């Protein structure tokens, strides 16, 4: 009976979500056949909505599935997500108003639009566009893992025999619905539904973090029950210090290189609002910190541990919620987690579609009308959602977080062109291009090396490279970025800056 109440609440709220998604095309109405309207909500988002939209990139499956999963499995090192969030908005405060200002009046939709102008190089722009598209894929796949985790627990308790097939069908159906409303409502749909998602998540997190510790007799009980986790329980094990710091700083640098984050930034309506909403975003991280602690709390809840043993560590948060709360609340919180994967997936697919349309197709066919551009982008956004869906049926990772960390290694290679390019015109396009190539190759090689060549692991399990002392574990993103930067900077010093593009001299 209880399980049917959960399902009913879940389905009812999902219908509200769908109605909001389709209805939001009317919000601050614009011509949806224009790319700026569809993909940037007409650049009309004020401070509050921008806060929700960029915040939507934080409250994703990364937060309620991937981080708790690894805190539960491995312990303290995966609490890096908290300083990462605190740090990334400081970086955004410095870089993003500047990018916004550079983009204003030039109708930039992506950071690659800027790179093309700065370096006057179509090749570099296309390389970076593909980098962005590829880096988003594992991030979207992570969202799908999260949605799957909720469905697994919910459906697993309803039917033991057909759970897998039902879960897969449910996942595909919800993706078709999502694709349809992204197609019609674009970024407006994502932003409005992000408000609903965050309201549900925030309410759930607060209730859970107050109720569960009281029921189990305090956090101390959980920390004692957790005993010794591999990377430290009460504090971080010394061996993982460099791993923690490199994950923190690299993730902080990576977030605002992701096309979806820049998409969010460029959709705000002023630098002042952008700055203020960014400044307040670390508050979002409190929820992230509390959710990460669920990975410890669960050790004091035996029935939830039993579920995790059955359905996998990826279900830490849903299992804990299922074990401790009345059915209506479980349905409510589960829906929050589910759309917490869907909404970011929508935003990410929109940003991929922008890149493919603007920075690849349009370069080949400059005469394309803005109507055609918008239409193409809509279809691409649908395509990318299903590529990501196929991706997770095809590729398996031991821990869902590692997918996002691979995405991070890839997107970090765009840092010299975008972040450094924003502050200086002294970079050489060939040096930046070769640096990018070296960063990509070394990053991918080191991932393969750490997982398959050295450890012979069956699936992707780590993005740390293990040095002997004194470095011990280091996030591969840092190594690849350093190689990239070295080549980009030394190469630019040797070759001299690229020819000044027309855009810059005219704006001076």
């Amino acid at each position, binding site marked *: 009976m209880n399980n049917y109440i959960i399902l009913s609440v879940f389905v009812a709220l999902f219908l509200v979500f769908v109605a909001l998604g389709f209805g939001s095309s009317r919000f601050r109405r614009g011509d949806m056949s224009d790319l700026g309207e569809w993909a940037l909500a007409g650049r009309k988002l004020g401070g509050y909505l921008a806060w929700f939209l960029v915040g939507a990139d934080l409250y994703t499956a990364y937060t309620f599935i991937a981080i708790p999963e690894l805190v539960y499995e491995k312990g*303290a090192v995966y*609490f890096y997500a*908290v*300083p990462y*969030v*605190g*740090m990334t*908005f*400081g*970086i955004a*405060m*410095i870089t993003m*108003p*500047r990018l916004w*200002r*550079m*983009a*204003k*009046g*030039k109708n930039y939709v992506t950071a690659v639009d800027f790179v093309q102008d700065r370096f006057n190089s179509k090749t570099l722009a296309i390389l970076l566009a593909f980098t962005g598209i590829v880096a988003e894929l594992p991030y979207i796949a992570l969202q799908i893992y999260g949605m799957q985790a909720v469905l697994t627990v919910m459906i697993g308790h309803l039917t033991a025999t057909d759970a897998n097939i039902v879960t897969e069908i449910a996942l595909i159906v919800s993706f078709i619905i999502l694709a349809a409303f992204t197609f019609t409502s674009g970024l407006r749909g994502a932003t409005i539904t992000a408000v609903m998602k965050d309201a549900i998540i925030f309410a759930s997190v607060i209730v859970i973090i107050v109720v569960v*510790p009281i029921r189990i007799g*305090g*956090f*101390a*009980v*959980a*920390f004692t029950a957790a005993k010794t986790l591999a990377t430290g329980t*009460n*504090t*971080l094990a010394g061996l993982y*210090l460099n791993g*923690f*710091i490199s994950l*923190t*700083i690299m993730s*902080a640098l990576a977030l605002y290189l992701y096309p979806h984050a820049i998409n969010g930034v460029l959709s705000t*309506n*002023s*630098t*002042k*609002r952008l*700055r*203020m909403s*960014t*400044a*307040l*975003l*670390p*508050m979002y*991280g*409190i929820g992230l*910190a*509390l959710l990460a*602690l669920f990975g410890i709390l669960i050790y004091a809840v035996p029935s939830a541990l039993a579920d995790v043993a059955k359905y996998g560590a990826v279900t830490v948060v849903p299992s804990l919620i299922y074990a401790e709360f009345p059915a209506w609340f479980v349905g409510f919180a589960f829906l929050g987690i589910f759309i917490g994967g869907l909404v970011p997936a929508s935003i990410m697919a929109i940003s991929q579609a922008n890149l493919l349309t603007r920075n690849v197709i349009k370069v080949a066919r400059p005469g394309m009308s803005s109507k055609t551009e918008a239409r193409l982008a809509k279809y691409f956004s649908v395509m990318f959602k299903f590529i990501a869906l196929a991706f997770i049926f095809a590729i398996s990772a031991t821990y869902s977080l590692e997918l996002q960390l691979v995405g991070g290694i890839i997107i970090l290679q765009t840092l010299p062109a975008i972040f450094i390019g924003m502050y200086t015109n002294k970079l050489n396009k060939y040096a930046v291009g070769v640096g990018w190539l070296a960063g990509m190759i070394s990053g991918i090689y080191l991932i393969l090396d750490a997982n398959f060549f050295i450890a012979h692991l069956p699936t992707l399990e780590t993005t740390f490279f293990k040095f002997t002392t004194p470095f011990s574990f280091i996030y591969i993103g840092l190594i690849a970025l350093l190689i990239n930067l070295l080549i980009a900077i030394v190469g630019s010093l040797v070759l001299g800056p690229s020819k000044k593009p027309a*855009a*810059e001299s005219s*704006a*001076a």
Partner: protein
Amino acid sequence: MSAHETESNWNYEAKGTTTQKLTVAILLVFPMLIFGLTPIYNIDKPILLGIPFFYWFETVWLVVSAVMYVFAALLLNKMEGADAQ
């Protein structure tokens, strides 16, 4: 409408006194620096509500960061002036 609102600006220089710029720099860099200096908060005690220092300090520091960033934003917005966005 000022020029800022209609044209992109690649060579924007923040207006404001050296003191203002320095204050902004401190307000932005200090929170990030503390987050990066993991050894200073990688300790067990004092424990708060059963949570080791390592975990609760980072969480509390998010709030401190947000407050410092907001002051930086207010100052930067003031420096940007009324004519810009």
